[in-house]
């Protein structure tokens, strides 16, 4: 069979080429892969230019004059708010690390049964919408603590535990503890060993995590608005107040610029500190310690306490969705599906409750927005990340450009989009997909961060191997790139969808009545009076938690299934 086919023309590829000429002029050097790397990244760059750079430029260039700058910057309240934004963010970073470090150390340095589950549960907070976290704290805490600085900071710490865990624990896992032993044998005491060996190895991860947590807390909006009360304003919430409540667009823009400058400084500082440390770090993969004795007991305490703290607001949320006032009731859930549902308690009067159709509209709007944002961000990020990888070291600038949406806060972005697109020939804000477009911009950097390492992991030699086996470029893209990228694509899509489901700042500015996303509806309901209204907020928040967790579980299982080697597709 095979030997016959080898030498005959039965399955040989058709002969290709041109007749032999020996006197041809020399050809210029010509790479076989001729497509320009920048082409795949262009759509994302254009997208960012239209929906990020232009709105921000219009905001700064068209709506601010010198009087706005002097008016805002000379006002004492501006600096009071800026100072509050700054110190509450610093305190939130400290609180986050205090809460997360014990578990991070235990998970990062030890191997135990259920380690992955513990890490997954502890990460849930980060993937939950900030409005839901705020709702969870309201459901958990007594009334007098619903609006307080401590609650606000606790909420910040709550959803940033995952950042510390996900960034610092992997570095702990790869830290070569033999270096510590080496330093000790050379006469270094514990403190000197920590300062000269352990800390330099950990510094970049700790600095990166701290910078990310700081930025999230510094630009916090939903938590501040829900748990901070009317007397506490961060720059982000004050931008929203000025732009929408007072109509002071110029003042809002000046504050936005101040905020962007602070974030840019933190990002640059973080990158500089992290780079210095990373270059001196020798990483290795070591077997993690197993847990026994005292350390096991300590581990159990750390895991139980942290997981209790993480799950308590969610349990309280579900519990509160089953209570109207002081009584157990399914009225909140019934009101989700039945416009004419009989209300359980007399104090929850129908006029204050939101109709089932409005709640369902909110669910549909959120789902639709998340799917659209995920698809758009995925396509754009796939192209952009490919360009970043193909450009090699020249692609660093592009990598940095793709991170710009992280520097511009959602509220600022929403404001810029309103100013830019609200007076045009087309009613952009009336289009349901406009919020999704904004979410695709916000989600793009996250998708790029997931996809760049995935592209890098595809060995370039595989394309050559497929080429000599007869695969044309498109076929190679499908069989190699898409197949190997699939887990990362699924993960990126899930991440963007989760971000979109929970995004509040931009959605609260751009959503219109009838097409509000769930976080906007939840925040609106929490801000109103009436027991049933509040229960409806908890019901929606519970649904949102379930949707986020389900989406993430599907992403996890999808990614796991697609890493199986068997090829079950038909050619």
């Amino acid at each position: 069979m095979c030997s016959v086919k080898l030498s005959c023309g039965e399955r040989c590829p058709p002969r290709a080429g041109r007749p032999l000429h020996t006197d041809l002029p020399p050809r210029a050097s010509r790479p076989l892969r001729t497509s320009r790397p920048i082409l795949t990244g262009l759509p994302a760059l254009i997208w960012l230019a239209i929906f990020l750079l232009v709105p921000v430029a219009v905001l700064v260039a068209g709506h601010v004059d010198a009087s706005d700058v002097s008016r805002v910057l000379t006002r004492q309240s501006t600096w009071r708010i800026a100072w509050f934004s700054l110190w509450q963010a610093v305190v939130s970073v400290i609180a986050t690390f205090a809460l997360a470090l014990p578990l991070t150390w235990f998970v990062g340095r030890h191997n135990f049964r259920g380690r992955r589950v513990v890490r997954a549960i502890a990460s849930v907070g980060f993937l939950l919408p900030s409005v839901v976290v705020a709702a969870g704290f309201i459901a958990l805490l007594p009334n007098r603590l619903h609006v307080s600085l401590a609650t606000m900071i606790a909420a910040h710490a709550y959803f940033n535990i995952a950042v510390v865990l996900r960034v610092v624990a992997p570095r702990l896992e790869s830290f070569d503890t033999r270096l510590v032993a080496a330093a000790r044998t050379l006469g270094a005491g514990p403190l000197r060993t920590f300062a000269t060996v352990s800390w330099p190895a950990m510094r970049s991860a700790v600095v990166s995590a701290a910078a990310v947590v700081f930025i999230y807390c510094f630009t916090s909006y939903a938590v501040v608005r829900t748990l901070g009360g009317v007397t506490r304003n961060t720059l982000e919430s004050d931008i929203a107040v000025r732009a929408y409540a007072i109509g002071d667009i110029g003042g809002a823009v000046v504050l936005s610029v101040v905020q962007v400058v602070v974030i840019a400084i933190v990002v640059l500082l973080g990158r500089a500190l992290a780079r210095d440390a990373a270059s001196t770090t020798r990483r290795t993969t070591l077997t993690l310690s197993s847990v026994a004795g005292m350390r096991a007991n300590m581990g159990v305490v750390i895991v139980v306490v942290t997981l209790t703290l993480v799950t308590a607001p969610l349990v309280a949320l579900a519990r509160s969705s089953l209570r109207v006032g002081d009584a157990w009731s399914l009225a909140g859930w019934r009101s989700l599906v039945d416009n004419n549902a009989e209300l359980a308690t007399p104090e929850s009067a129908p006029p204050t409750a939101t109709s089932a159709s409005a709640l369902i509209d909110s669910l549909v709007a959120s789902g639709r927005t998340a799917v659209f944002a995920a698809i758009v961000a995925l396509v754009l990020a796939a192209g952009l990340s490919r360009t970043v990888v193909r450009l090699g070291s020249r692609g660093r600038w592009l990598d940095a450009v793709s991170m710009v949406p992280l520097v511009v806060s959602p509220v600022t972005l929403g404001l810029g989009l309103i100013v830019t697109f609200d007076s045009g020939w087309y009613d952009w804000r009336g289009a349901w997909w406009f919020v999704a477009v904004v979410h695709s911009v916000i989600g793009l950097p996250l998708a790029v961060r997931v996809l760049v390492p995935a592209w890098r992991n595809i060995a370039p030699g595989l394309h050559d191997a497929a080429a000599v086996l007869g695969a044309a470029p498109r076929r190679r893209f499908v069989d190699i790139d898409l197949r190997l990228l699939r887990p990362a694509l699924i993960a990126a899509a899930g991440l963007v969808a989760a971000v979109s489901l929970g995004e509040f700042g931009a959605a609260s500015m751009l959503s219109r009545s009838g097409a509000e996303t769930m976080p906007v509806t939840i925040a609106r309901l929490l801000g109103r009076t009436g027991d049933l209204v509040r229960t409806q907020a908890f019901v929606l928040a519970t649904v949102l938690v379930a949707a986020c967790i389900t989406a993430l579980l599907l992403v996890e299982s999808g990614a796991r299934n697609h890493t199986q080697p068997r090829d079950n597709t038909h050619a």
Partner: protein
Amino acid sequence: MLDVVNLTVRRGDRVVFRGARLHVEQGERVAVHGPSGCGKTTLLHAIAGLISVDTGQIVLDGVDVTATAAHRRGIGLVFQDDRLFPHFDVADNVAYSLRVQGMARHERHRHADDWLERVGLGGFSQRSIDSLSGGEAKRVALARALAASPRVVLLDEPLTGLDDSLHDRLLTDLRLLFDQLQTTVVLVTHDRTEGAALAHRATDFSALLHD
């Protein structure tokens, strides 16, 4: 059968080799020797169409294929580092070229099983690539290249990195297989005994350069 005519390849400003010439007859096995870094692998990649050439021609059965894309040349290449597809199992790796040609799944898997049997890996079709030893991976890479029914097979240091006993066993198996298939082979290696054992004719890489 295969003619390499005055081939010059540059990488940036550096000339990798200039004026390389090689003639291989149908069914002939030619070994090219040379030290590491002399340009042997580059020559194979140029013949396979994976890199561009500055001047010269690659002629296959009387047709100039110099400007033809790699996937249309019908030239097989077994890479030094195997380059097996990690996301496919062994059978899907071996059957990849058949899949590209549009062959039905059950039929291409039957062919893959035949080829695996031929290279001494019967029963390996469901194995993942990660589970293969170095020698097994070499055999799978060879079966994959041969399953494509190439007009010429290029072997880039095919036995490098294997321990002595495995090296000798695979050398014997390869010779028997190529004898049976009458495959046209260009083999590059730094190991002269390997070339002598496998090829009908051996030459130094430096002897190919006529400029």
